[in-house]
């Protein structure tokens, strides 16, 4: 497949399906970020190979990889006073050479990225004056301007309030569905993962414990094993798909049934 990757790092293998929204779930420090950084060519696995377009990612030029693969890093630094526009246009770097100046195509890509993230009206505002959700969308626009068919997102919704989280996830779903992009995102909210993922990868202790469609992967047994939580998986009454309800200590007796819509 065109953008398929196959990872073998610390004995783990992963195929990222082309054109899917893949979500990686797992407790803190289980190796999610490491996995994503390996996929993004930021880390070289000690053994094994990451393949992008069927070729070893480390044997390709960094700029070539960057035209195929974009990353929204967790450690992004927003330079003081930078405007949204200035940030987004830096995403065009892999398409430019030392001597080429700003082209019509660069301009169109930036305009499209701003449009897709609904940041056009805020283009001239300094990023550090925006709300958390808008700031994150500005960064997503920067990655979109890169025009890569694959997007890797490292905890894109962390530190955002619920409304911003959903806006952003809907944007990702839209990019996947209508933009045809392959997405790989690390998320912390199991229910968000269940709702948005087409392909779900669950990690624990540096291993991939389960992968597949969310309704197949997410079971009470798996959640107990990986996250050490007691949870019930029911059918989502609004969106369909699995919905996870965690049990809090001291709550009433558990209902054993897996699919029992309550209330």
């Amino acid at each position: 497949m065109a953008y398929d990757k196959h990872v073998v790092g610390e004995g783990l293998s992963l195929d990222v399906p082309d054109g899917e929204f893949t979500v990686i779930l797992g407790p803190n420090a289980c190796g999610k970020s490491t996995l994503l950084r390996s996929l993004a060519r930021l880390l070289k696995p000690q053994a094994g190979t990451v393949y992008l377009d069927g070729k070893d990612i480390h044997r390709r030029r960094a700029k070539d990889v960057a035209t195929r693969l974009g990353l929204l890093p967790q450690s992004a630094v927003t330079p003081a006073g930078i405007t949204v526009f200035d940030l987004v246009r830096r995403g065009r770097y892999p398409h430019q050479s030392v001597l080429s100046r700003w082209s019509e195509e660069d301009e169109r890509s930036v305009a499209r990225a701003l449009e897709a993230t609904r940041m056009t009206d805020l283009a001239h505002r300094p990023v550090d004056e925006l709300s958390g959700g808008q700031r994150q969308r500005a960064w997503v626009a920067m990655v979109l301007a890169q025009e890569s068919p694959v997007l890797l997102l490292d905890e894109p919704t962390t530190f955002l309030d619920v409304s911003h989280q959903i806006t952003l996830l809907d944007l990702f779903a839209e990019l996947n569905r209508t933009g045809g992009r392959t997405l790989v995102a690390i998320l912390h909210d199991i229910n968000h993962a269940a709702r948005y993922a087409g392909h779900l990868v669950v990690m624990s202790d540096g291993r991939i414990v389960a992968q597949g469609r969310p309704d197949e992967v997410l079971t009470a047994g798996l959640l107990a094993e990986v996250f050490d939580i007691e949870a019930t998986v029911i059918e989502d009454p609004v969106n369909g798909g699995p919905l996870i309800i965690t049990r809090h200590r001291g709550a009433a007796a558990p209902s054993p049934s897996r699919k029992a819509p309550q209330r």
Partner: protein
Amino acid sequence: MSRTGAARAFVLRAPLPGVRASERFSVRSTLTCAALLALTAAVSLAALMLGEVVYSPQQVAQALFGEAPGAAELFVVQWRLPRAVTAAVFGAMLGLAGALFQSVTRNPLGSPDIIGFTAGSSAGGVAVVALIGSSHLMVAAGALAGGFAVAALIVLLSRGGGIAGFRLVIAGIALSAMLSGLETWFILSADLDIAQVAALWSTGSLNGTGFTYTGPALLAGTAMLLVTGFGLGRRLRLLDLGDDASAALGADPGRTRLLAIAAGVVLIAIATASAGPIAFVALAAPHIGRRLAGAAGAAPAPSACAGALVLASADLAGQHAIPGHSYPVGLVTVAVGGIYLITLIARENRKGTL
């Protein structure tokens, strides 16, 4: 904030009105550079006019176009012009080097003066003068070697902590102190006439600049300015976004740092070899340029232009500010730059960003 509606395809739009990108991002920066260069030209003109014999702007123009009597030609073209040009070009080189180091260290104090590169180049140059001889090429080689030795040491010393932040500044201050001690020892242990040459060189002065003597340095410096500005500008702007973002966009941050440090050391060494160590221009120029241009992060071009103006003005002041006395430009920049450094440290300290 608008809620996401139904799925829709990407819309191809004409360039947004008022967002002519090619203008948007560079208009203020370009204007700033133009203004700084115009001021530098004005200062340089003053430098050509002033002196023991004062000429009018018309006479200067005539001399430059070869239509003036021999005496005016000698004063303006042979004596004053090389010095004025050198001040502007070396200033630009120091300004750019400062911008490179501040960007690499992500620290407003991370200039070559503070982290010891200038001291390294200076000690290298003095060592060559004292031990081997004062031929221009040898001094240049010594300054370059000194600069690179310090660069290697700094990278080693700040290992683990990364080449950023407070640790680098502290290591640099310690290194600078040791190096100036070493320099003093070289001067003291040399013969008197050699020591005098070395001591004079180590104040940083544009006295006795001539095209035959400084010409090669000017050419090399101009070439380095252009190559560095065009080659590294975009990479530095990516480095500003963080290491991961830079790597994901195809610019390896480690490589950017290495290239920037190497280019910075070469720039400093070329200027130092010809004029001796000129302090504080590399520290102050990037701050001035960046602020005027309203730029976020690295701003190589405005920094270089600000450097040109600062050094040209400092040399003019050194020569003519106190009638009857001429001071080396290094002395002026140390005096003015010291005040600047104190205010900068006070401000950063208050912000807690040091």
